[in-house]
């Protein structure tokens, strides 16, 4: 059978914004107009959208103080450091014991009921823990006084992916998530080393099975292909030689990292042009001497925080910034978030909100401080399950979030949120008067910073007014709450609200 060839990738730069990039001043500090639109843009990208008050405050602060507010993390110690897990290991051990006791074919089998019960118990524990983990992370994103810390954690979760599969204990994934949080604006080289020794990662990409006698190349390959360099910047020999170097990094019985010297291949390796008796730590060091490492992270950060399909020249400029700062994220993000290119019209609403951004942002918009199960179901139907990225590549993002099902789910989520919101304060704030036009202006200003057409505003006004529909009375004190909920839902269904 011939070697398989892949389908062609989609046309390049399909989603690059229109207009010209001003490369020379791209990373210079932004000194243009600063208003609610720029402040909300910062909140959508560096955080998840924020509340109307958050956006107002940032508007008053100006660009530098507002960015400083994100870069200097607020004290998040009041938030739970981890979810309450049931720990499914007793169930797992029970099942293992039963299966081990299962005799060879031909002899009487273990009672089916016992196995079935053990499997079901394990399944229930698994689901309960997944719900607890998702809720915990979502609630941190909603309520954290350090939104950029949570945003970077989400970025890293989709970058250095591991999933709640392959028997990885829930606690190990929580620990990995907290590792991202602790290094949210830290050093990428240090983080990559820590990720290489992270128990969830050791299992997810099989390095726990990588030993001298039978090298397993899975981690070594993905480390370069997806985490640090990208295809074309290493050879198959580099994959094999680095896999040899990572041999021996494994897991103890209680699922913690351990270096097992007897499993390590002590021979000489040649990796990316260097030769020596390398360990995994050496491999990480060598990778970060490659020019491609800075380029790779520059592209990923631009795509996540600025716009899709960034120009190679812009990538190179950010890559130089990353190298100049020796892979420390804090100065890099500080520069990017206050740069001209970040506030340019080309970057404005030029990304698709991920489902998590949509859900968390909507909660923040209405001042709801806790998620619920409806949100988890909606996230699944929108294609983003926290702790279960689809594969090691993470979430593709961009156009991949857009199809009939995912957009209907967004609209239905917004509708449900409006229907069940108990607190009426928000609606009262929108009711500036009994004038439908005034109310629709207030709504579109609060939800979309005025990024709405006159035609859509007119439709909202007509809806609020009950014009032309016999079933609806004109806006009044009696129906205002319900009518404003409906109009807020319609505003959230507008295409602009799907964009970050």
């Amino acid at each position, binding site marked *: 059978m011939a070697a398989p060839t892949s389908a062609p990738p989609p046309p390049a730069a399909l989603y690059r914004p229109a207009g010209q990039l001003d490369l020379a001043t791209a990373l210079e500090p932004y000194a243009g107009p600063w208003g609610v639109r720029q402040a909300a843009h910062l909140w959508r990208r560096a955080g998840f959208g924020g509340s109307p008050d958050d956006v107002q405050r940032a508007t008053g602060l100006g660009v530098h103080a507002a960015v400083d507010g994100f870069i200097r993390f607020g004290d998040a110690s009041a938030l739970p450091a981890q979810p309450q897990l049931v720990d499914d290991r007793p169930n797992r051990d029970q099942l293992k014991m039963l299966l081990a006791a299962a005799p060879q074919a031909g002899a009487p089998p273990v009672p*089916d009921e016992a196995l*079935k019960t053990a499997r079901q118990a394990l399944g229930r524990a698994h689901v309960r823990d997944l719900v607890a983990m998702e809720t915990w992370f979502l609630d941190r994103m909603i309520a954290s006084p350090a939104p950029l810390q949570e945003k970077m954690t989400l970025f890293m979760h989709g970058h250095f992916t591991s999933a709640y599969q392959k028997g990885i204990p829930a606690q190990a994934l929580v620990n990995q998530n907290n590792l991202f949080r602790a290094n949210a604006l830290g050093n990428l080289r240090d983080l990559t080393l820590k990720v290489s020794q992270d128990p969830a990662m050791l299992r997810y990409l099989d390095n726990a099975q990588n030993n001298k006698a039978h090298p397993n190349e899975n981690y070594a390959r993905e480390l370069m292909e997806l985490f640090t360099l990208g295809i074309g910047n290493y050879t198959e020999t580099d994959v094999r030689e680095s896999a040899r170097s990572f041999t021996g990094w494994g897991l103890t019985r209680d699922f913690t990292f351990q270096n097992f010297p007897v499993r390590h291949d002590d021979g000489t390796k040649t990796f990316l042009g260097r030769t020596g008796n390398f360990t995994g730590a050496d491999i990480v060091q060598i990778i970060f001497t490659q020019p491609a490492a800075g380029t790779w992270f520059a592209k990923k950060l631009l795509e996540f925080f600025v716009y899709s399909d960034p120009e190679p020249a812009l990538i190179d400029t950010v890559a130089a910034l990353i190298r100049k700062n020796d892979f420390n994220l804090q100065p890099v993000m500080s520069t990017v978030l206050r740069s001209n290119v970040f506030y340019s019209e080309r970057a404005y609403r030029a990304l698709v909100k991920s489902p998590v951004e949509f859900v968390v942002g909507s909660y923040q918009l209405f001042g709801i401080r806790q998620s619920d199960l409806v949100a988890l179901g909606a996230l699944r139907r929108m294609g983003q399950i926290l702790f279960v990225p689809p594969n090691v590549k993470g979430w593709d993002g961009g156009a991949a979030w857009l199809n009939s099902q995912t957009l209907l789910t967004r609209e239905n989520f917004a*509708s449900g949120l409006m229907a069940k919101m108990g607190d009426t304060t928000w609606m009262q704030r929108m009711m500036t008067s009994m004038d439908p036009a005034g109310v629709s202006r207030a709504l579109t200003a609060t939800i979309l910073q005025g990024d709405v057409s006159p035609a859509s505003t007119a439709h909202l006004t*007509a809806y609020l007014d009950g014009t032309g529909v016999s079933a609806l009375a004109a806006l009044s004190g009696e129906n205002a709450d319900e009518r404003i909920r409906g109009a807020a839902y319609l505003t959230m269904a507008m295409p602009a609200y799907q964009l970050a």
Partner: protein
Amino acid sequence: MKRTAFLLGATSGLALVGHADGFFARALAQAPLDTAAGSAADRVLVIVNFQGGNDGLNTVVPFGSPAYYKYRPSLGVPANDVLRINDSVGLNPALKAFKDMYDKGQVAIVQGVGYPNPDYSHFRSTEIWQTAAPQQYLSTGWVGRYLDSAGLPPANLFNAIAIADVLPEVMVANRVDVAAIAQLNGYGLTSDKNKTLGRDAFHSFVSDNDVPFRSPYLAQVAQIEDHAQRGAEELPKLVADYKPAGTYPATPIGRSLALAAQVIGSKLGTRVLYVQLGSFDTHTTQKGTQDRLLADFADSMSAFYADLAAHGDDKRVLTMTFSEFGRRVAENGSRGTDHGSAAPVFLIGGGTKGGLYGRQPSLDDLDNGNLRFTTDFRSIYATVLEKWLQRPSSAIVGSGFDQLPLLT
């Protein structure tokens, strides 16, 4: 003709949404419309996913092999019960209705289908079958890439439909929006009290390009929202006149195939439909579960083709099954089977030349207790693409995969 009702009024108007070099404007400019009657345009592909990994050995049973009964002491289907195809293999008795279809020449069975270095994870192997890329991580499914390449009318809301809660990866395309519909009832926007006004407002947003910002995604978001909303409103009306012939099993797959027949019979221009059933993940007490699922599949498929035939649609509908893997050859200690590799694939209906294809993998030459595949699954995809859908397959599933002679 009702059909025009769901085509967006003025195709040229679409190009006005967003800026001129927007996504859909380019897609429109590039897409030739394939409208020739009697061509591939009339043909439908239905994909059935046996979720969870169906045990191929107890589906197409190698009762002629003594090794089969050695590996399957409690689970082996007794030779006398097997619905015989020839002297060595036959179908599980739960597939009786399906065997009747086979005997009429409506079913092609490809034996031993898999891929090199099989992955035993449900997640990854499902992804491999759906993206047709064992060595890469692709963001589109193989059907999605077909849809992108087929020059389908961009304004048709129902070029492809997944009858499922969540859009399966196999249908994910770059340029064609595929609707995921679990059932007609409940599809679309949840009720808000003031539906009527809301709907008017929704439709107005689509032509809404007069916004104070530009975004490379704006036109696409607007168009897909419009598709979704119109589709949810239109589909129940468009299929309302369809009268099913006969009854389907009152099971999820029965209902899914009934809806598929309804869509096909209503002639909406739908090229591909996806349905699923499961779970076939039979680690314990396999027989009860697998027999129930296979019988459900057989009865539903039989009802589906009877319904299609009564409406004159059976010749234009090809159905293909897949499952992420077969199961371990040796049964485990709890009358079940663990994750394995190669398994049979069924092709049913329009265009198939009934019979057995491929080679049954040897039970005497296993790979770590698993079957060695004899036909690469991409050979079947390539055959379906070239012969049935009449598209070049190399850009979709890669080149170098021999076609099988199982389609006319």
